[in-house]
């Protein structure tokens, strides 16, 4: 209240000073906020490898998918990819870009002969199984990638968008430690935990060679890339659909499953689309879930809902539209959105119930005669707690 006597000039000066102070304070605090965010990002990227169990599930399911594609097309491989399909012109004038890029050209060339396409399929089968179980994963991924991308580029008549997605995902997976969990490699690492050797030997034994911060950084950046890729795929898929009348009026899912190509189970298609409101829910729900997928992933509660909804969506596509391997690759990649905490909780619960069952069985057995060589009595593996 003593300011009442001051001149207008000094008031102005004081006002300007206060303004300046608050600007400086704001600048300081926003700078601090930016620094805090940057530090948080740095900590997230360097702190630990994220989504390790999720990526293990991705690896396992992608392996199953590749094995499944090979087995599904095994008896018709020469008809679809080999010399039986030369009429498509795809052998002589391949339309895929990859058919012109080394080493994928080799796979394309191999398709010309019966032995060659058989070798490609068997190679894919072997690499797919090894990838699935995580056996020398980093090494196996190289021939697997060449064979898979090459195989898909043989005949573009039978390609679909999930083929693009698996290729793109593999490019990111190369930078991840996808076999750190639930793999033969992980067992190997534990087995050789206390042994020494040169870098090559250590690599062969799946021991840590490169500095931890470096592999962790690449791993986490690749996880970010995969997460963004999936979010973009779902959201754009929803946006593209939202412009179409059948998606707006809630009838779109009816049409494809009543065509011969995508309605592989006509009786189920009739059943699934008999009740109009269900068709509308599936149609509008698809658009809404797809568009909102990135935002649903931000919060634990909505994430559970979003992932269950999208799982149902993929199971529906896999069964009703005859696209099981397309669906499985999408499900495989969605697994990275489930936190490591959740995966470990899940496995712990499974193990507990398994041990309980085993114990009750043992108790039951011991009433009769003692089971001296119970194969189930081996100590439970403790791989998840390293």
């Amino acid at each position: 209240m003593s300011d009442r006597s001051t001149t207008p000039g000094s008031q102005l000066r004081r006002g300007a000073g206060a303004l300046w102070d608050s600007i400086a304070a704001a600048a300081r605090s926003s700078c601090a906020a930016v620094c805090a965010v940057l530090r948080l990002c740095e900590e997230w990227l360097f702190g630990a490898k994220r989504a390790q169990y999720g990526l293990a599930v991705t690896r396992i399911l992608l392996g199953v998918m590749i094995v499944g594609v090979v087995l599904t097309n095994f008896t018709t491989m020469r008809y679809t990819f080999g010399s039986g399909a030369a009429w498509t012109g795809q052998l002589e004038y391949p339309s895929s870009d990859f058919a012109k890029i080394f080493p994928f050209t080799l796979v394309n060339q191999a398709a010309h002969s019966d032995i060659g396409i058989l070798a490609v399929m068997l190679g894919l089968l072997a690499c797919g199984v090894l990838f699935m179980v995580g056996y020398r994963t980093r090494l196996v991924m190289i021939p697997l990638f060449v064979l898979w991308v090459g195989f898909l580029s043989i005949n573009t008549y039978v390609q679909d968008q999930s083929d693009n997605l698996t290729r793109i995902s593999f490019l990111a997976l190369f930078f991840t430690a996808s076999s750190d969990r639930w793999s033969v490699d992980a067992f190997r690492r534990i087995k050789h935990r206390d042994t020494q050797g040169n870098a090559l030997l250590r690599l062969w034994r799946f021991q840590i060679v490169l500095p931890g911060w470096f592999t962790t950084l690449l791993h986490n950046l690749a996880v970010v890339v995969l997460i963004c890729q999936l979010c973009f795929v779902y959201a754009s898929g929803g946006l593209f659909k939202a412009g179409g009348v059948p998606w707006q009026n809630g009838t779109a899912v009816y049409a494809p499953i009543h065509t011969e190509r995508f309605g592989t189970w006509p009786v189920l298609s009739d059943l699934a689309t008999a009740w109009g409101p269900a068709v509308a829910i599936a149609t509008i729900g698809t658009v809404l879930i797809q568009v909102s997928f990135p935002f649903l992933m931000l919060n634990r509660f909505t994430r559970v809902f979003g992932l269950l909804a999208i799982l149902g969506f993929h199971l529906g596509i896999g069964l009703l539209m005859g696209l099981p391997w397309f669906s499985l690759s999408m499900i495989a990649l969605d697994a990275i959105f489930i936190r490591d905490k959740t995966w470990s909780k899940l496995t712990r619960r499974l193990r507990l119930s398994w041990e309980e069952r085993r114990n009750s069985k043992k108790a039951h057995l011991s009433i009769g005669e003692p089971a001296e060589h119970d194969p189930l009595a081996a100590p439970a593996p403790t791989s998840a707690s390293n």
Partner: protein
Amino acid sequence: MTQTPATEPAVPRAPHRTALARITLVVTGLFTAWHIFASFLWISPPSELRSVVPGNLLEEYMIPWYGQSWSVFAPEPINGDYHFQVRAIVSDGEKTGGKATYKATEWVDASSVELSMSRYNLFPPRAASLSVQQASKLLNQWKELNSDQKKTVALGYYEGDNWLGRMQEALDKQGTDKSKVVNYILQERYSSAYATQVAYAIWGQDRVTQVQFMVSRQNIVPFAERHDPDAQRPDAEIADTGWRGLITMPGQSNENFRDVFLAHYDGNAR
């Protein structure tokens, strides 16, 4: 989010990373940011935002490794069936007095034969949609032709080895856009090659002299009429194409085609 053993001492994380780590973080982080931004632009519906990337850089970065398109079943999902039917002129094989007799066969729906591989099959092979794909490719190019050109392709072209070239010349004379003709002729070639394989498989390589294919697309019963037992499917759109000579693409194995095709051909497909 690794599980850290409870025994590990709770050492506060060293906030000071080495300079190398920080530089690596900045470089890889910036590259990742660019990749994500480029993916965003490429995957999302095209907008003016794409113009912030200079020149052709976006496409050069994305293609071929990150090539993808997610307008699947959008804006409208597929609502019709493509079919590829084949018939042939076959000789009776028995030369009576040195003279063979020729007759046209019934139509065989090759697409139905292939699609039977996926019907009620949890794990359908990709082979099931080969001719459906060829049918849609030919029909889409046929639709690009003008009415005069459509009349031309309805005629028979089979004499000699150069019938496809003669058809191309005739089509070129009737239209101004030569690229449309090239695209159509390409699909004629592959369609004839497919029809030849189907005919060889069913009627035998030594008997077939000409083939004809009928490519069509027919929409399904509309949603609103799905419970109407008398509902009719809309009329099929048919590419009217005449008799054609035989084409065998280089490297084609007739046996590898025949073995699979006949395994699913019950002898009386439509």
